[in-house]
C-alpha cells in the first residue's frame, strides 16, 4: 500500500488564530512520518485536514496525484486512530472493529471473520465479546487500531495514539505499533508531542512550531543537524552558543566564547549560532581539553549524569558517565567533538 500523500500549502485559521500556515510535504510512501511539535503547534490541525475532518482555507492535498482536498472524510478510505480512542460505547469490541466493514455493506459472515483477524493482528481476539468499559486503556487503543486497519485503509493517520497511557505500556505499544506498521508497509502519519515516540517510530520527522514546519528529515538528520534553535532545543538538550566564523591564515576557524576551534566543513564566514549537544562535550581525563571550567551542578540520571559547567563566561550542559561523576566545585577540563558542532545562521 505504497500510497503517496502530498500536502501543498495547507493553511487553516480558526477565528483570529492561524493554526497552520503553508504546510507542504510529500509523505514517504509506505513509511511512517511523524509530525512532532509542542501543543498548539498545529500538528493535530494538519492531521485533521489530511483526514478530511477539517477543511483547509487554502492549499491542497493529493493522493497519488489526485486532488482530494474537497473529498469528505468518509470517502477517503483513511484509517484514523484518536488519542482518546473514540470507541463506540454501545457496541462491543468485535462490533466496534466491524463498523468500517458494516458501513461498506460487507456481509455479516465476512465482516465477522475480517474483524476477528484484525483483532488477532493486535493480539486481543480473546476480548472480542467484551464491552468497551470492561477493557483497559491499552486494550482500548488496540481495539481502535484494529478498527482503523480492518478495511485496509489507503493511509493510516494516528493522532497522539499513546499519550493517554502510562510510560511502560506506552513503550510496549510503541514497539508493537512500529513493527505492525512496518509489516503492513502502509503510509502512516503519526502526530505526537513525544520526541522519543517520534524518533523511535518514524522514517521521517516533521517538526512544527507556531503553525509552520521548522524542519523535516530523518530523525538522525534532524537531531544532529537541527535547522533552527527551536528544533535544537525541542529535540533533546542543546547548548546554544554565539560564535563567529573567521578566516585565519587561510583556514576557517570558529570563534566561540571560550576559544577557537577549526570550523566544520562548509561553514560560512560571519556571526553564527552554534549548537552542541551535552553528549558531544566530554570530560578530558588527562586535563588536556580545549576549555577549562568549574562544575556548578551535577544531577544523577541513572545511566549518566548531567553536569552544568561554567566555562569561558558561559554555562554548558555536559553529560558525564556515571563512573566518575564530578561534584559541584570540581575543576574539569572539557573537549568538544568538533565534528558534532552544528552551525546555524544568526538571527533565527
Amino acid at each position, binding site marked *: 500500500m505504497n500510497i503517496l500523500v502530498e500536502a501543498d500549502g495547507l493553511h487553516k485559521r480558526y477565528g483570529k488564530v492561524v493554526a497552520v500556515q503553508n504546510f507542504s510535504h510529500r509523505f514517504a510512501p509506505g513509511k511512517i512520518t511523524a509530525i512532532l511539535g509542542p501543543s498548539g503547534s498545529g500538528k493535530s490541525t494538519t492531521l485533521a485536514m489530511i483526514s478530511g475532518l477539517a477543511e483547509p482555507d487554502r492549499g491542497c492535498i493529493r493522493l497519488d496525484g489526485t486532488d482530494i482536498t474537497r473529498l469528505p472524510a468518509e470517502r477517503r478510505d483513511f484509517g484514523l486512530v484518536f488519542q482518546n480512542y473514540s470507541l*463506540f460505547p454501545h457496541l462491543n469490541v468485535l462490533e466496534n472493529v466491524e463498523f468500517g466493514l458494516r458501513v461498506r455493506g460487507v456481509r455479516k459472515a465476512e465482516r465477522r471473520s475480517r474483524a476477528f483477524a484484525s483483532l488477532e493482528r493486535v493480539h486481543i481476539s480473546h476480548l472480542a465479546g467484551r464491552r468497551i468499559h470492561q477493557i483497559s486503556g491499552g486494550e482500548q487503543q488496540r481495539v481502535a487500531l484494529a478498527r482503523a486497519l480492518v478495511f485496509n485503509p489507503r493511509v493510516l493517520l494516528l493522532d497522539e495514539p499513546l499519550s493517554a497511557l502510562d510510560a511502560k505500556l506506552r513503550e510496549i505499544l510503541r514497539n508493537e505499533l512500529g513493527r505492525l506498521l512496518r509489516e503492513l508497509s502502509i503510509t502512516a502519519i503519526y502526530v505526537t508531542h513525544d520526541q522519543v515516540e517520534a524518533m523511535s517510530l518514524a522514517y521521517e520527522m516533521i517538526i512544527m512550531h507556531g503553525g509552520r514546519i521548522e524542519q523535516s528529515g530523518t530523525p538522525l538528520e534532524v537531531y544532529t543537524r537541527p535547522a533552527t534553535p527551536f528544533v535544537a532545543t525541542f529535540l533533546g538538550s542543546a547548548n546554544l552558543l554565539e560564535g563567529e566564523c573567521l578566516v585565519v591564515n587561510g583556514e576557517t576557524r570558529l570563534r566561540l566564547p571560550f576559544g577557537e576551534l577549526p570550523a566544520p566543513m562548509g561553514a560560512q564566514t560571519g556571526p553564527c549560532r552554534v549548537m552542541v549537544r551535552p553528549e558531544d562535550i566530554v570530560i578530558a581525563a588527562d586535563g588536556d581539553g580545549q576549555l577549562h571550567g568549574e562544575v556548578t551542578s551535577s544531577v544523577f540520571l541513572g545511566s549518566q549524569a548531567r553536569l552544568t559547567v561554567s566555562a569561558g563566561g558561559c554555562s554548558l550542559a555536559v553529560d558525564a558517565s556515571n563512573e566518575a561523576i564530578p561534584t559541584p566545585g570540581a575543576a574539569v577540563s572539557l573537549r568538544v567533538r568538533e565534528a558534532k558542532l552544528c552551525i546555524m545562521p544568526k538571527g533565527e
Partner: protein
Amino acid sequence: MPRKTGFIFCSTVTIILMIMILLPLVVVVLGSCINASLLGLSTDIWSGSRHEIFDFSAFGYILENYGDWAVFSLELALACVVLCLLIAVPAGYTLVRHPFPGSGLIEELAVLPLSIPGLTLSMGLLAAYGEIRGPLLVMAGHLLYTIPFMVKVVTSTLRSFDVGRLEAAARSLGASFWQRLFLVVLPSLRHAMMTGALLVFAVSWGEFNVSFLLNRGQPQTFPAVLYDTYTNQSIQISSAATTIFLAIVIPAVVAIQWLGGRESVDVEQGA
C-alpha cells in the same frame, strides 16, 4: 458516636421516613380493596358485597364509569411521548452539534414552561388558540410541559459522551450522515430517549391543571377522575382511582431510576 450506634440511628431514621412516605400509599391501596362496611364507614354511598374482607368492586366501578377517561389519558401520554421524541431529539442534536447564534438562548427558553404556573400557561394558550380548545389544545399544553424534559435529557447525554468525537470516528471509518445517525448517534441516545420517554409519560399522565383548563367536556384526563371521585364519591372509590393512577405511574418512575443507573455506566465507558 460508635459505629454500631450510628448504624442503628441512621436505620431508625430511614425506616421512620419510609413509613411516613409509604403509609399514605398503603392506606390508599388498602382502602381501595377492603370492604368499607367492615370498617364501619358510614359515608359510603355505594355498597358492594357486605360479607367479604376484600372487595374489588370499586375498581369495576372506576373502569366502567371512567374507563374512557383512562384511555384518553393514556393516548394523550403516548402521543406526547412520540411527538416529544420527534421534536426534541432532532432539536437537542442540533443545539449540541450545530450551535448557531442564539442557540444557547433557545436552549434556556425551552425549559421556561417548567417554571410557569399551569394556570398562566393555560390562560395564555386559551387566549392565543381558544378556538381549538379541546383535546388538541390539551396535547399542545402537555407538549409545552414535556418537551423541556426530553430536550434536557438529550442535550446533556450528547454532551456527556462528546458525540462529535464519536461522529468523527464514524466518518473516518466511512460512515455517511445517515449511517452515523442510525448506527452511532441514536443508539448512543437510546437510554436517554427511554428515560426521556418515561419522564414525559409520567408528567403527561399526572398533569392536571393544564388538562382541566384546556379541555372541553368529556372525557377528561385521568387525574380529573381523582378530583371527581375525591369530591363526589366514597373513599373506597377514590382510593381505587388513586391505586389505578399509581399502578400506571410507579413502574415508569422505577424504570427511570433503573435507567439512570445504566446511563452512568454508558457515560463512563464513553469517556
